[in-house]
């Protein structure tokens, strides 16, 4: 009978992988902010109860009173089982506050503390909580600084981890070059796929290559045409560079949907002016003012790309260069074409109005699409 009793203890009633609540894991978040080390360490109450006996009245419940009574013992036990060192110097952890946090239907004792060390190159975390009681306990560490986030797991077998805390401002030249080149390419790409920007430019340029300003409009020669284009593009470029920077740096924020609508509308305005030239004197202003709006449009795109705080300025600058390069490429193709076309007799009274109307029509569709959110898939 004795044997049967013992066997009975081990009968595995079917193979069921034991997995209910998570195994014993604690969550340690370390934030390296402005040379301070802020820690939040969440430890499951159940784990603490097993080791420290929180349920003192053995009623199978942990009450507020029971937890409060044991709070300092818990904190001492926890902080006594972790060591954070910076260059072999121990970081003293000062308790800031204690909370109770629920994670995944379990309650955790959450210790907030601050470390008095300033991590220069690396910190080492020696994690020993519950290591003698539960070899399967793990510390899930999440380290955050201004420019990186790392997740590391400590186990009983590997209780010590070292995190490199160097910020990316100590970037190597190679990393910087990578940022520059990738964002230049993004800039070029996004202006090429930015049909609305291209159409705006083309609409602006249509008359520019052909006609002189002023009351008596005569055909321009090559040099005049060229400079006219340069002036327009420069105004446009300066303007969109300004707002691209303002928006990316979060200095000016405009709702993106509105921006998209106005970009489309800008095409309409310029196109209509091509057809009925009421504002010919102000075309440079159009280029500038609408350039400002287009800049916000580019910013929307740039912010969708992954930006890192440390290389933000560099990314922004490179992206802008990319946009300009892309623009230049378009001009280099468009300008000779348009200039050549401008010799066509019907350029002024047929080509410009027709193309402008076409652009305006497309732009109207865009305005409708972008303001209502419906997609009109004709193209």
């Amino acid at each position, binding site marked *: 009978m004795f044997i049967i009793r013992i066997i009975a203890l081990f009968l595995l*009633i079917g*193979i069921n*992988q*034991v*997995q209910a609540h998570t195994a014993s894991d604690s*969550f340690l978040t370390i934030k390296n902010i402005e040379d301070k080390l802020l820690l939040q360490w969440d430890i499951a109450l159940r784990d603490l109860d097993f080791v420290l006996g929180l349920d003192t009245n053995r009623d199978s419940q942990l009450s507020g009173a029971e937890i409060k009574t044991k709070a300092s013992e818990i904190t001492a036990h926890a902080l006594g089982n972790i060591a954070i060192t910076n260059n072999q110097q121990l970081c003293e952890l000062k308790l800031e506050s204690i909370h109770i946090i629920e994670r995944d239907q379990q309650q955790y004792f959450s210790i907030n503390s601050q470390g008095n060390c300033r991590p220069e190159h690396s910190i080492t975390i020696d994690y020993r909580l519950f290591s003698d009681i539960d070899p399967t306990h793990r510390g899930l560490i999440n380290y955050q600084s201004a420019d990186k*986030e790392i997740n590391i*797991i400590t186990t009983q077998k590997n209780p010590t981890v070292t995190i490199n805390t160097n910020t990316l401002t100590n970037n190597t030249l190679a990393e910087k070059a990578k940022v520059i080149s990738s964002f230049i390419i993004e800039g070029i790409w996004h202006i090429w796929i930015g049909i609305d920007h291209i159409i705006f430019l083309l609409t602006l340029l249509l008359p520019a290559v052909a006609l002189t300003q002023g009351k008596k409009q005569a055909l321009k020669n090559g040099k005049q045409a060229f400079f006219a284009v340069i002036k327009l593009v420069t105004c446009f470029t300066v303007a969109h560079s300004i707002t691209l920077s303002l928006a990316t740096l979060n200095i000016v924020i405009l709702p993106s949907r509105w921006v998209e609508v106005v970009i489309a509308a800008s095409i309409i305005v310029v196109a209509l002016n091509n057809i009925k030239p009421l504002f010919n004197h102000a075309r440079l202003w159009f280029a500038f003012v609408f350039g400002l709006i287009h800049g916000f449009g580019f910013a929307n795109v740039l*912010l969708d790309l992954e930006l890192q705080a440390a290389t933000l300025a560099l990314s922004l600058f490179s992206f802008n260069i990319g946009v300009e390069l892309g623009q230049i490429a378009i001009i280099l193709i468009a300008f000779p074409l348009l200039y050549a076309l401008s010799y066509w007799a019907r350029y002024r009274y047929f080509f410009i109005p027709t193309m402008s109307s076409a652009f305006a029509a497309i732009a109207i569709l865009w305005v409708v699409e972008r303001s209502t959110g419906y997609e009109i898939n004709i193209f």
Partner: protein
Amino acid sequence: MIPYRRYFLSLAVSCSIASSTVIARPLASLDDNAIIEKLPQTITLMKNKNHPLRQQLQQQPKDINTAIALAKQYIEIGQSQSDPRFLGYAQGLLSPWWTLKEPPISVRLLRATIYQNQHRFQEAMADLNYIVTTAPNNQHALLLKATLHQSMGQHRQAIGSCYKLAKSAPAVISSGCMAASLFASGLAKPALHLLQSLSEETITQQTPTTQQWIYTLFAEISAHLKQAEAEPLFYKALTIKKRSPYLLLTYTDYLLQQQQAKKVIELLEKDEVLDDTLLLQLARAYRALGNIKQTEKYQEILSRRFKVLTLQNTPLHKAAAARFALEFEGNQQKALSLAEANWQSQKTYRDKQILKDALVAINTPKNITLIK
């Protein structure tokens, strides 16, 4: 065109999902009488019963008999509560001998049990093989070995172990072992006959744990063969005052098949310690009843659990995750890859079932014949 989204400068690349819905209450704000966390009764009972034992161990951690006695209790709690922590605690108690080159057999046996529950089958088998070669009549080891072979899909070896067991163990034990092995290998009818040959008396003479084991097995096989006796057998197993996650799983499967979702809810809602597989059963039951709110509630819990476990590198209960993907996420590809991964590690008939279901969902009849 350009998307209507706006991303602000962000630091993080990966974002811990667990921390996204965290509400922190300051310690001082807790009401003294408020219940912050409930603990399972079994754990309190263990504490009460073993207080002197635990004290003793703290003084003399190398007292092997005390360590083993307590470790056994921890393992049992770990199994009945589906709480892997307790397996860890058991492992902790055995640490003075765990890393020895030649641990004592008693320690090896417990180690094999822990490994098996942690799904580390190869390591468990290594320990068991050692035991049966040095102590061929060790009944625990043979029984454990048979069960391990079953879950690894090694049916012949499972039957072989049960056969060796028959030489020394009582009829109930060896019959149970054999029936389980036969059932696992697809021979349900012979398994049923074997169990039917046991008299009611012999079964009720056994310890509650053994009885529950036999009744659960008996009920499971009967249910599989669509016998009416399944229900009373499940009932007998349930009346034994010991929580068995496997029994709950099998029984709820049966109830769901019998369109008795309401009973599933009655059974599980009052249970505090639901693991992923049982939460899934609850979700299925609510869905069968058309209770959208509760279904979504459990679906959300499960979805987060699986995500969190994956993020934290914790081994998933892949079969449950596969079924969840299949039945709730509608993601057949994911279900299939999970079911296949599960099949690599475990080959019980339940694992076969989810793999089949996943294959059928993707509609590749060719593959189904392969696993048959």
